[in-house]
């Protein structure tokens, strides 16, 4: 047992351990960043036409920080693009065939094939910006739709500038059917494509469907051809190699690559090789490295080969060594923009998620030896960002796993993984099945095979694109519109021109709030405006979805998502068996607290009139400090296990989620579904949205995802957790919920972050208490939990002396970030977050 003393050095940052010289070298080499001789930065490739472009801004509509750079990026990639010699028939092919062929050509024939010293896995370069492959007519039409007057780009900027949020058809964020590649090989996929293609009528073959299937067949040969290239490189290196052990490894790699990923994997090494090559080509295919391309339940689908190789004599540590190479490879996704900024391209916006443990059929626990091996790999490699692990917990989680999880939390600066909670998560997915009429695809017999993507967004696996980051909606906008009867509280001023917009009723006319006699009248206005903003984001999303569906096929990825082959339809056109677009609501607690404050201040206690409140908001609370303090300190808040306040939270939740279920994309038939992720928008949009009735001035952060507002959770962690569970729908009082007794209104899940003082894990007794807290979370909490174990003093010190804390990882709403790499506002905010001391 230790007590805090002032004499000792106070903090120690987690250091990697138990690394072989090989892995140590690869890891160190990776962190040398721009000083490396080798890297995986973007290369750009063109058809050579004057209208060609590579950069797909649609992927970045959800990243407002990049809006001003769209034209620059597009031009830069065009400028640096190398021409590719085209097939004589190229321009006669359909667009998906052109894309498939072009990408294969670049990956197989143009990109160098390199193997790093000691590396056990092949597949190094994949960050590419490849031609959109559009002909002149297509390019003109696409650019008109995107950049023209009244185009998507303009609509996206308007939406963001007016504080609604953002939306765009974004890549990644799904779990391809990697398990199938390992099981059947690409050959199996190719043969199925061929079978289905052959069954088409002559007319169908000439049509869209035939073209799509041909494109997918071209794409399906890309991993085979690339593996052959890498195999030759391994053989070449083996010939030059003098060290017999390394020579053996290289020859073994060459043999592996002769087999996988085309044929089914026969060893664990082959399985990981097949997985990596297949995965990196998804990132290449979408020209979108990393964000949300997730692996799913690796400890399940790799387990049979893990066991087999162990039984055939593979040393367990060697198996881990293969995985550690895999870890290093995943991190090279960041190399895309390695020269940008001071962090060698490492940003928070990635997330190749792996899922560990969790429930199986009949509620049984699926933890196995590979689960532990992977946790050991994480423990030994940490701190490192990718792939991001998510550990699934449930009522049947064994003590041994929980011990390992809590030990790792205790020895890291924060949990080096996210925790997902099965019962609550599965209740949401069962609800989703009912709401969208796919109970034949998601039901009790398979829902346990779900896995999260990106950060914590729950999806099904191998047949599901849920667009989990594509639409981000500020619920608070509806409060603003209800206060003004449909106007912006403060008209938008363009920062470039300095011009202020003429006030216009953008929202619904819900009447003059100053005349409302009861809170219920205000609620009705709020509900109407909520319906309005949901409709608005649905309409906005439709526009980029349409552009993507027409002009940006991803035939390679389509091969890996069930439904596309069967329908002969690209995934961008709604080919996946399960197609959703997730509206991620932002500002939940700020909205609930604002409604509670209006009720308390104006109607219940009559501390002020509605007119006075609105004036205070227009004045950004300046000159209204007493009222502001009452809003902050006296009005009830969500997050305190106060039934009345949490009831308001549930009411807000039901309203917006019900509204969300009403819509589908028109061009691709994808169902909208609700979630709460809120990435970093709760920070940046705090500078756009005006003051809110909960006492927040403009410029201060909004609430993060499902979390209570900053500083609001004064009743401690258990109260915080209980509130979160309640607003998700709680549990069935009598009878059954959607899964066991659980309800969950957010099938996507909701991000919940809690910060604890390290003292809570200081000895075995307290670690046991923390384990019990997690088991309590299973019962009462949400779908996902991130644990920060950081001490405010340490963060302040890191702010002052970033040079000493380069590897300090913090978790911010679903993603890891190096603390010193994030902006000061966010740093301040993390410091301000109440550190729960147990």
């Amino acid at each position, binding site marked *: *047992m230790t007590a805090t003393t*002032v004499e000792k050095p106070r903090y120690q940052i987690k250091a990697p351990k138990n690394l072989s010289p090989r892995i140590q070298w690869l890891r160190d080499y990776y962190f040398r960043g721009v000083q490396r001789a080798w890297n995986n930065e973007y290369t750009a490739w063109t058809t050579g036409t004057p209208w060609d472009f590579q950069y797909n801004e649609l992927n970045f509509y959800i990243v407002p920080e990049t809006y001003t750079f769209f034209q620059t990026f597009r031009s830069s990639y065009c400028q640096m693009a190398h021409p590719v010699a085209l097939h004589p028939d190229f321009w006669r092919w359909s667009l998906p065939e052109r894309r498939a062929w072009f990408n294969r050509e670049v990956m197989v024939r143009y990109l160098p094939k390199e193997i790093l010293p000691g590396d056990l896995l092949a597949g190094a370069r994949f960050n590419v910006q490849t031609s959109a492959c559009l002909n002149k007519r297509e390019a003109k039409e696409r650019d008109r739709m995107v950049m023209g007057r009244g185009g998507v780009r303009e609509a996206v900027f308007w939406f963001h500038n007016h504080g609604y949020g953002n939306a765009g058809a974004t890549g990644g964020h799904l779990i391809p059917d990697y398990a199938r590649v390992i099981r059947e090989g690409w050959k199996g996929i190719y043969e199925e494509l061929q079978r289905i293609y052959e069954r088409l009528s002559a007319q169908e073959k000439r049509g869209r469907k035939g073209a799509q299937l041909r494109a997918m067949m071209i794409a399906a040969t890309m991993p085979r051809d690339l593996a052959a290239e890498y195999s030759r490189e391994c053989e070449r290196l083996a010939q030059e190699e003098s060290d017999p052990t390394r020579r053996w490894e290289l020859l073994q790699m060459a043999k592996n690559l002769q087999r996988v990923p085309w044929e089914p994997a026969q060893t664990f090494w082959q399985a990981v090789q097949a997985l990596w090559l297949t995965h990196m080509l998804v990132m290449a295919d979408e020209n979108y490295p990393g964000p949300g391309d997730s692996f799913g339940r690796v400890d399940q689908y790799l387990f049979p080969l893990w066991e087999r190789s162990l039984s055939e004599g593979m040393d367990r540590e060697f198996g881990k060594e293969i995985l550690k190479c895999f870890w290093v490879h995943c991190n090279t996704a960041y190399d895309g923009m390695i020269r940008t900024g001071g962090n060698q391209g490492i940003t928070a916006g990635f997330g190749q998620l792996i899922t560990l443990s969790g429930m199986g059929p009949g509620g049984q626990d699926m933890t196995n030896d590979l689960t532990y091996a992977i946790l050991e790999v994480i423990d030994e490699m940490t701190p490192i960002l990718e792939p991001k692990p998510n550990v699934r917990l449930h009522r049947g989680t064994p003590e041994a796993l929980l011990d390992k999880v809590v030990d790792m939390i205790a020895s890291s600066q924060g949990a080096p993984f996210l925790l997902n909670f099965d019962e609550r998560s599965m209740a949401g997915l069962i609800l989703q099945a009912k709401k969208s009429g796919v109970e034949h695809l998601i039901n009790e017999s398979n829902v346990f095979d779900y896995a999260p993507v990106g950060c914590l967004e729950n999806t099904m696996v191998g047949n599901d694109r849920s667009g989990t980051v594509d639409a981000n909606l500020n619920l608070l906008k509806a409060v603003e519109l209800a206060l003004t009867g449909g106007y912006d509280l403060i008209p938008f001023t363009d920062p470039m021109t300095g011009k202020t917009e003429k006030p216009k009723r953008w929202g619904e006319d819900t009447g003059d709030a100053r005349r409302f006699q009861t809170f219920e009248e205000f609620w009705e206005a709020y509900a109407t405006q909520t319906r309005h903003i949901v409709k608005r984001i649905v309409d906005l999303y439709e526009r980029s979805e349409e552009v993507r569906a027409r002009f940006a096929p991803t035939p390679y990825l389509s091969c890996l998502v069930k439904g596309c082959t069967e329908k002969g339809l690209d995934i961008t056109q709604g080919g996946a068996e399960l197609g959703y677009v997730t509206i991620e609501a932002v500002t939940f607690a700020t909205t609930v607290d604002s409604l509670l404050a209006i009720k308390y201040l104006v109607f219940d206690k009559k501390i002020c009139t509605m007119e006075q409140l609105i004036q205070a908001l227009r004045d950004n609370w300046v000159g209204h400090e007493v009222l502001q303090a009452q809003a902050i300190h006296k009005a009830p808040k969500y997050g305190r296990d106060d039934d009345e306040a949490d009831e308001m939270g549930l009411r807000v939740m039901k309203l917006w989620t019900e509204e969300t279920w009403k819509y589908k994309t028109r061009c691709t038939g994808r169902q909208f579904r609700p979630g709460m992720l809120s990435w970093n928008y709760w920070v940046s949009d705090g500078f756009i949205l005006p003051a809110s009735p909960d006492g927040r001035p403009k410029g201060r952060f909004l609430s993060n995802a499902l979390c209570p507002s900053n500083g609001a959770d004064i009743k401690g962690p258990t109260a915080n957790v*209980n509130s979160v569970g309640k607003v998700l729908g709680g549990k069935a009082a009598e009878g059954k919920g959607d899964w066991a007794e659980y309800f969950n209104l957010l099938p996507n899940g909701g991000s919940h972050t809690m910060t604890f003082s390290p003292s809570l894990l200081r000895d075995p007794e307290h670690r046991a208490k923390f384990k019990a807290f997690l088991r309590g979370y299973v*019962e009462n909490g949400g779908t996902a939990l991130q644990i920060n174990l950081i001490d405010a003093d340490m963060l302040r010190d890191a702010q002052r002396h970033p040079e000493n804390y380069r590897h300090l990882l913090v978790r911010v709403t679903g993603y890891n970030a190096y603390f010193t790499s994030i902006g000061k506002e966010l740093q301040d905010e993390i410091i301000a977050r109440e550190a729960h001391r147990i």
Partner: protein
Amino acid sequence: MMTPSKRGRILHLQRLSTEDGPGIRTTVFFKGCPLRCVWCHNPESISPRVEIQWYAVRCLNCRTCIRVCPQQGLEMTADGLRIDRKRCRGCGTCAEACPSNAVEVLGRDVTVEEVLEELLKDRVYYETSGGGVTLSGGEPTMQADFALGLMRALQEANIHTALDTCGLCLDATLEILLPFTDLVLYDLKLIDDEAHQYFTGQSNRRILENLIHLRNWIDTHSHAPKLWIRTPLIPNATATDENVYSIGNFLARNLNGYVTRWELCAFNNLCRDKYTRLNRDWQYAEQPLLSSDELAHLEDVAKSSGVDATIVQTSGATRLQEETWSR
């Protein structure tokens, strides 16, 4: 069985309490204490009266409190809000009116039912952790009827109960509460009676007698509580080799086999601001924390005092909790 609707005066409830007994607990802080320990980490719990306190950092200087005080007992000075504690009747009008909660009431009167409702909210965590509810303070035995009603209700609800006591009460009071107590956390601060009187204002005679009484009670009852002893380690007061050794020796001689844990709780200075808010001086304000070496040394002394060495534990966070949570 109905529980008596007795009102009690408490400071607050601390949820997810991990330092006051096994598992995850909610600690109910009673107001009022018979001791006057000079190092007290919870000075707001000493007086049984309702008091108010003022947080400078929260104050907007709007003077609402001064205007509404029916006793005209508040005044803003260069040093902050002056509370005339002789005039103050603890009516709470100021705190109710204060827009920023800069003025706070210490002590509220609650019924067993009201507290129980709050306590039950964390039942799940008690169950997953083997935790429950701890009555602490202040001194719960000073409000024996309320404590009894609460503990009885908790036992009916099948929730583990712990009684954190300084031991200074009638033996009869203890006897009333023990049937509803699963664990007693018994404070032993100083063995030397003169020192005890000097530092706490009271003789330790009854405290030691009650401990023996408790032992006898355990002997004669089949459903008897477990017993933990707690000793705060206060520099130059309790944290001496001699005192720690004497306590251990007392336990070894009189309670061998009865005590399942003896906790040495390291001094903590984080309650310094509490004294400021109550306009009191605290002689430990500048006292540095124990070093880990000092703590380890005292742990060794305790272990060599004749008690079963496995029952000796140290902890350093108890009152740090309290500081963080009382807002």
